[in-house]
């Protein structure tokens, strides 16, 4: 054996094998142990199966702290780029476990595909407005009847739920997940709610927009987006309950629960997605999955459009612009829901699963 015999030519490795190569180097180093949950999880093992690698990849929040602290990044011959390779593995895991398998790969990768989906959604809603129209309802129902909205959006909601449910089951089996306990769930949701893994370990945030400088910008952008989205979702859920349980159909007052939740959520979602879209070009692309940069960016913009059109639609209540705006808003919402299993949105479900699995292994 000679000292020249160092492992090289790893460019040819597939993402899982390349991640394994890098993780084994990390496991011999361990300097990054304090940054996030990935490294303590690595130190529990000596060998890493494909499922272990997928789990670590989905546990990684791409904070990039480990990259900038690493003594083995290029030009070093070990050529570590753990955030980059884990992003690729993560992306592959979403596509490999997707149901229907192979569906919607284009939406992950291509912003144009997402834009086309939005246009199709918009056209569909516009056609619905013209063909079905109102059955004499109030508010937005004056443009499109309540029953027509339900007929369109119940399947558009149930399909992603089913698809993601099947995907997660497959993924859970792949990573060797066990029976989920309340304790593990509590810890996982707690970590997600605070986005603990973007805290940098020292509570100063992550490295993204300015190399090794720690800031909370991405964490804030993400939290505004996530909480904004959840509030909007809560607004719709509340309205559904009010409609069917309490027989209180829309339109609602400004001081009603659906409006308070929806407007607050819409504002947070607008601000959050705007911040994320502004940050994204500043980050080093090679520390993420370069194959899906365009798809990710388009997804952020789609969420932004969903939020903005929702707010504008509310502001335009009673004007002649409502039919067009309603079609636009509902069209983007439709595209968003249908793309959920095949877009960046799915990361939230996998990440939660990874956090639950991590809590199980602690």
């Amino acid at each position: 054996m000679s000292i020249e015999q160092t492992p090289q030519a790893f460019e040819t490795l597939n993402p899982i094998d390349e991640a394994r190569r890098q993780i084994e180097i990390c496991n011999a180093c361990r300097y990054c142990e304090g940054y996030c949950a990935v490294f303590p999880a690595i130190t529990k093992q000596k060998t890493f199966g494909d499922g272990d690698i997928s789990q670590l990849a989905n546990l990684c929040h791409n904070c990039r702290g480990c990259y900038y602290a690493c003594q083995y990044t290029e030009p070093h011959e070990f050529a570590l780029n753990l955030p980059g390779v884990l992003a690729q593995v993560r992306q592959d895991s979403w596509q490999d476990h997707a149901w229907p398998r192979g569906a919607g790969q284009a939406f992950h990768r291509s912003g144009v595909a997402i834009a086309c989906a939005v246009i199709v959604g918009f056209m569909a809603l516009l056609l619905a407005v013209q063909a079905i129209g109102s059955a004499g309802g109030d508010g937005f129902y004056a443009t499109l009847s309540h029953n027509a909205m339900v007929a369109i959006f119940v399947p558009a909601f149930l399909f992603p739920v089913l698809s993601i449910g099947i995907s997660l089951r497959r993924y859970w089996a792949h990573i060797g997940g066990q029976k989920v306990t309340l304790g593990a769930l509590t810890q996982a949701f707690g970590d997600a709610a605070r986005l603990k893994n973007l805290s940098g370990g020292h509570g100063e945030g992550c490295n993204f927009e300015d190399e090794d400088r720690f800031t909370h910008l991405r964490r804030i952008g993400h939290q505004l987006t996530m909480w904004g989205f959840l509030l909007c979702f809560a607004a719709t859920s509340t309205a559904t309950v009010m409609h069917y349980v309490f027989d209180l159909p829309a339109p609602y007052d400004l001081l009603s629960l659906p409006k308070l939740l929806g407007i607050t959520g819409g504002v947070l979602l607008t601000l959050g997605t705007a911040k994320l879209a502004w940050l994204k070009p500043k980050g080093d692309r090679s520390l993420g999955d370069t194959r899906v940069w365009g798809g990710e960016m388009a997804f952020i913009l789609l969420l932004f459009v969903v939020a903005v059109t929702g707010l504008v639609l509310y502001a335009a209540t009673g004007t002649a612009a409502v039919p067009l705006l309603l079609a636009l808003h509902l069209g983007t919402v439709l595209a968003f829901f249908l793309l959920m299993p095949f877009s960046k949105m799915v990361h939230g479900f996998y990440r939660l699963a990874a956090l639950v699995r991590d809590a199980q292994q602690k």
Partner: protein
Amino acid sequence: MTNKTPDIVIVGGGNAALCAAITAAEAGARVLILEGAPKEYRGGNSRHTRNFRCMHDGPLSVLTGSYGEDEYYNDLLLVTKGNTDENLARIAIRGSQESQPWMEAHGVRFQPSLSGTLSLSRTNAFFLGGGKALVNAYYRTAAALGVEVLYDAHVNHLELEGDRITRVDFTQHGTAHSLTPRAVVVASGGFQGNIERLVAAWGPEAENFLIRGTPYNRGDVLFDLLDQGVQSIGDPTQCHAVAIDGRAPKFDGGIVTRLDCVPFSVVVNTHGQRFYNEGEDVWPKRYAIWGRLVAAQDDQVAYSIIDSKSRDLFMPSVFPPVTADTIPELAVKLGLEPDAVAATIAEFNAACQNGDFKPTELDGVATEGLDPPKTNWARPIVDPPFYGYSLRPGVTFTYLGFKVDAQAQVQGATGPVQNLWAAGETMAGSILGQGYLAGFGMTIGTVFGRIAGKEAAAYVH
């Protein structure tokens, strides 16, 4: 290139250089760092470090309990066998306690000791993210203070006229430059990155040494000044070396190339013969002597052989071990004579005695009638699969450096050089005459870097 002549030029871009630069800039001096490495490799050997040995009278930041000056000094005496300058050593030790909060105030973040290093939780404060994270934080702090940095800037000459440095010559991207700062701090490490100099000091064996740290510590400024009559300290023929994975890169392999398997193994040379007691002491204590032991073998290589019983008793290695189901097969894969290795293992196995094996302490499970003996953890190598690792000397640093006084001022032939200070590895030989104490290099660099920065700033004002 910079527009204005700086007050102070700092040669080097690692921990000591940055501590000096930040301290001087805070005192109002215009500071320029000349870092020999490109930006990606900035920080010298500091980028491979991970902790800071710190005196503390009570719990301090992540440090537990207390670690007093005398205990610290005693630990230093044990590893250096008294080969230290007590005055400078105590300055470094006392300065560490006050430096820890200074480091935090200047961007360094600490964490409890890393897994696998519990023995250091009381004495050593670990950097969150390791030494490169520390270096990054200091570069950010320095930039905010207006410190300028030139990368790829190779300083090749400091002109010493009388008792003053009058000129700094360096090249950057093939172009030669000269500067005339009022003061200079040298913090550019030892000379282990220059294999020719290592061969000249150690002998031809040094060709086969691996360099664990930066290739940019080439000793150009060190030898340039020593040639001009500046006083040196430390044995020029000596370097600190440990036994690392023989497959490690020639340079910059860093922490991951360590191998902790020796105490549980039989170590043979290229002739398949044992040459030293593998079980002499617990591994952190014995780690350092194996570099020297392997350096003394033919081709400066040795092979550590374990069986499946010991596979999980030590930190994972960066390269997978060579694996075989029989000892002769393993020997062939390692490029060794199978009969010789098989005979050595058989002889060792026959000399093993029954005992209560305890991997984490001196268990006294020893061989009988074997020369050299193995005095702890001697268990027969019989359970396949068998694993083999090659070992080579990995140089961490050299001992030759500048003689400095308590103000970190460099000593010329006839007295102190008025405007020249030194900090870090380049003067550590005064304090660490031999051996090594985990985390002490960063202590010397931080404390004397800060002293050098303060003194240089006071001089230029």
